[in-house]
């Protein structure tokens, strides 16, 4: 049976030899730069020692001890839930806005305005979260933040942003859209650019309005792109956006109930007693549950629409 399989394998390779040849550099690349270093996943189970034999892999085996500090805290479920919730908000709001922007941009007829506004949308992506944080304080500060000035101006009570955890998921989602949606819409724009123009022409001849074209052609044609982006994002759904949250929230305990994610927790816990094993352990946990989620999501999509599945 093995022989038969191998025969099938050889036959398949020879049939598509050029295609497999084209893939070879990429596959070797992933083996070298991604799969070989995966040996490091084993660090999650050892007391890492840099001079241990076999490049540290020979460190003392400690079983599941490295997972203890995370799972023994009663907060781990809450933190994992926060991570999941925030990322769900980010992913859905991100995809909706990106898609919407791309569709709107596509309908714009003034060429110059279209190009300029797209360039502006694209720029915030270059501002690091650290710099954003400097400016966000000016925006949200209790004593003299711009938003509170405006609220007071309209006779409303100022919001104590930095002590009010409930407003932050929304604020973070808005900031993320500000920073990333313009950039992300490029993917959709490219997909729209790839739609066969004849389809639109035929629809126009049939008397379809612009609105009809948007909802009957453009958006349905973006289905596979959306499914793909969704699956790719779901893979990292258990990874918190550490860069953003740490820069904007800092270690402000008053905001922790909604903004504390796995990555900020690990950072806080290990910043005094850094341990490769302990940080690898939580990383492995995030990967494994992400993996399970993705496989499930892919299976669902596979059932709904085979074309859109990732693998």
């Amino acid at each position, binding site marked *: 049976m093995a022989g038969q399989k191998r025969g099938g394998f050889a036959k398949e390779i020879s049939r598509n030899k050029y295609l497999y040849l084209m893939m070879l550099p*990429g596959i070797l690349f992933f083996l070298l730069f991604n799969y070989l270093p995966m040996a490091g996943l084993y660090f999650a189970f050892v007391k890492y020692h840099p001079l241990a034999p076999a490049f540290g892999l020979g460190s003392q085996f400690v079983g599941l001890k490295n997972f203890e500090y995370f799972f023994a805290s009663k907060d781990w479920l809450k933190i994992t839930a926060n991570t999941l919730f925030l990322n769900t908000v980010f992913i859905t709001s991100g995809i909706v806005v990106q898609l919407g922007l791309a569709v709107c941009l596509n309908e714009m*007829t003034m060429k110059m305005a279209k190009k300029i506004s797209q360039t502006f949308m694209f720029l915030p992506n270059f501002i690091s979260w650290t710099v954003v944080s400097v400016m966000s304080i000016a925006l949200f500060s209790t004593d003299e933040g711009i938003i509170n000035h405006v609220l007071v101006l309209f006779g409303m009570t100022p919001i104590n942003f930095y002590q009010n955890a409930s407003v932050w998921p929304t604020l973070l989602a808005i900031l993320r859209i500000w920073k990333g949606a313009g950039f992300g819409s490029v993917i959709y724009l490219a997909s729209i650019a790839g739609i066969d*123009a004849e389809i639109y022409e035929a629809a126009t001849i049939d008397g379809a309005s612009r609105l009809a074209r948007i909802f009957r052609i453009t958006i349905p044609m973006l289905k596979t792109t959306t499914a793909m982006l969704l699956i790719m994002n779901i893979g990292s759904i258990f990874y918190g956006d550490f860069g953003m949250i740490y820069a904007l929230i800092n270690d402000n305990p008053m905001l922790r109930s909604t903004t504390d994610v796995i990555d900020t927790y690990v950072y806080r816990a290990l910043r005094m007693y850094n341990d490769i094993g302990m940080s690898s352990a939580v990383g492995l946990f995030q990967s494994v549950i992400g993996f399970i989620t993705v496989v499930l999501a892919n299976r669902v999509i596979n059932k709904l629409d085979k074309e859109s599945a990732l693998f």
Partner: protein
Amino acid sequence: MDTAADKAVIAACSIICVLFAAFCAMPLWVALVSSFTNENTLIREGYRLFVKDFDLTSYKLVFTGSSDVMNAYIVTIVTTFFGMALTVLLTASLAYPLSVESVKYRSKISFFIYATMLFNGGLVPNYLLISRFLHLRDNILVLIIPAALNAYNVFLMRNYFATIPPSLAESARIDGATDITIFAKIILPLAKPILATIALFASMGYWNEWYRVLLYIDNRKLFTLQFLIMRLQQQVDFLTSNLNASARAALGNLTIPTIGIRLATAMISIGPIVLLYPILQRYFISGIMVGSVKG
């Protein structure tokens, strides 16, 4: 001809885009203005829409004491250019076969590629690989090669290739073209929007690369622009979050770089990539205006 309803749709879309663009541009404008504002005025009076107390100190401080900035620009441009080219080449040649239905193992290989997005071995094995086995420390290649291929780009491209009607390749194959010819002569010219997108993403990535520089580059001649900037930012982050009072005291008179410097460096780093953008932009923004992609 556009009906009144169509015109309303165009107007609504235009308004949404312009408003969102303004929403994006405002903070940038404020940052730009602030980077030219006297630091004390900035802290005391907050951010403004127009410059008050014009001051070039921040920019001067960024450029003095480091002749490195010009050099870093060159390194950044070189790595961005070659990195982008390599990325597009590797990504396209891996992504295309994955979109061809006759490739039996494509779903398995896709999974093999996707898994790299989920699992990574972490810092230690990667450092070992680069330093001990590939001996790429202090080599400009370390800034180009390891970042050349990622699963995300591969799937974006595969997704696009899949929308190209297979009949095109099929008819060429009947005419006796090999898969490589089909790829180069038929597929790639049709895939300009996605090639431009990946080129853009890749150049962004290379432009912003600093962590590999921190880890693998000691030679000052090979520092990148983002690295110089991130060093500054990192110092701020570190001094303001990781040290207790005694440890900070024991480092003597270290001052946190001013807000002005941080904003100025952010502005400087945006500069050139903004120039690249309009060049690539026409490939994916043209949309249906260009007419049939089949030409």
